[in-house]
């Protein structure tokens, strides 16, 4: 049985036609199911657990990156298969999973090509795609063995599912590709150095594969995990041992 979790923004009139078309296509494929609408006050884990008790086997998230992050940050350990139908703007995770936006995502879902994906754990929640710490004065401790510091601010990006590429200029062709199933997370650290009176300049990034890391700072810094931002003083990030079953497309980037 399929359960569909719709994000609240899909109530907007401009999405009506896409949603209708998707529902018709899903009915054609015989995979239509119960529709639940999410909002900020609903705990997705509780909802999904209830639906699993009622016999749900596949939970499909309908929305954008923020919806995906909102659901899986809590419900990643639920015992079911997850699917994703990207709708609306701000959809990058769908591309990584090989799921096109809009109506054609239903074709991918119906094919049910499943993959087991690693997930990251941050303080008390999960992240699937990417974690981004905005530039701040930070100290990063890896696997409780060595510490990394810089003289100025630094930016940290932890990649799990979504590859992280950086380019100094357009001519630069050096790409680092991060595989989501390699049993490690990868952290990219980019220190900022002062340039002139006001500006900052990014240095070349440092790359550290790790299993556990801790980011510490004296003042609160912003952390964005799967598109959801929060302020923290200390963040512990590690590779969670649990994995999620996910329906992915043929054109996935891993």
């Amino acid at each position: 049985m399929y359960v569909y979790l719709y994000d609240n923004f899909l109530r907007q009139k401009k999405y009506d036609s896409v949603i209708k078309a998707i529902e018709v296509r899903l009915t054609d494929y015989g995979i239509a199911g119960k529709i639940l609408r999410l909002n900020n006050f609903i705990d997705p884990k509780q909802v999904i657990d209830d639906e699993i008790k009622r016999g749900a086997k596949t939970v499909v998230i309908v929305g954008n990156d923020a919806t995906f992050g909102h659901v899986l940050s809590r419900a990643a350990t639920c015992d079911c298969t997850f699917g994703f139908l990207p709708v609306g703007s701000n959809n990058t995770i769908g591309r990584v999973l090989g799921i096109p936006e809009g109506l054609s995502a239903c074709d991918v879902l119906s094919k049910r090509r499943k993959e087991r994906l690693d997930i990251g754990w941050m303080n008390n929640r999960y992240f699937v795609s990417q974690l981004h710490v905005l530039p701040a004065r930070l100290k990063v401790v890896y696997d409780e063995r060595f510490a990394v510091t810089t003289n100025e601010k630094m930016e940290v990006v932890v990649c799990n599912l979504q590859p992280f590429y950086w380019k100094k200029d357009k001519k630069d062709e050096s790409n680092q590709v991060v595989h989501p199933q390699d049993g490690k997370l990868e952290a990219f650290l980019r220190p900022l150095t002062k340039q002139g009176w006001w500006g900052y300049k990014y240095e070349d990034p440092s790359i550290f594969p790790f299993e556990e890391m801790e980011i510490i700072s004296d003042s609160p810094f912003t952390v964005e995990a799967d598109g959801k931002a929060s302020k923290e003083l200390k963040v512990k990030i590690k590779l969670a041992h649990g994995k999620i079953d996910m329906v992915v497309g043929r054109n996935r980037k891993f």
Partner: protein
Amino acid sequence: MIFQKSTPKNLPEEEMLSDTPIESGQADEVETVVGPSVNVEGDFASEGNIIVKGTVSGSVHTSRFLSVEPGAKIMANVRAGNAKISGEVKGNLKIRETIELTSTAKVLGDIEVKVLSVEPGALLFGKISMPGIEGAEVRSVKPRSVRRSEEIAEISQ
């Protein structure tokens, strides 16, 4: 308020691209890179290749390739499979296969390696030991007192 600007201002746009197509064959090739103006302290170990462009103090260990770029500084004992040194190293190096000291290299410490290559201009202060010379191995294995007693025994015979 103008003077309290704390966020980076002149960051180049589109620096971080997260949806560029992946080049096949590069997967699983993630190396550990210590970038410039980054300081690493502690037991720095990695299973893959290590590229050092910043400063490392403590100890460095990898079973694979270590590259110390020009301007980089390592104040630590180093153990690696292969190494190419173009920066500064203060500490003993224990390399399993090959070490290459380029013209900008500066090494203060003992080197233990199978194959050594030194470019003209490289600075080196320390003892170099290489396996393969039988006499040297015997001498290094036996303590001086043992050798002395053997010599006395030979003379008395």
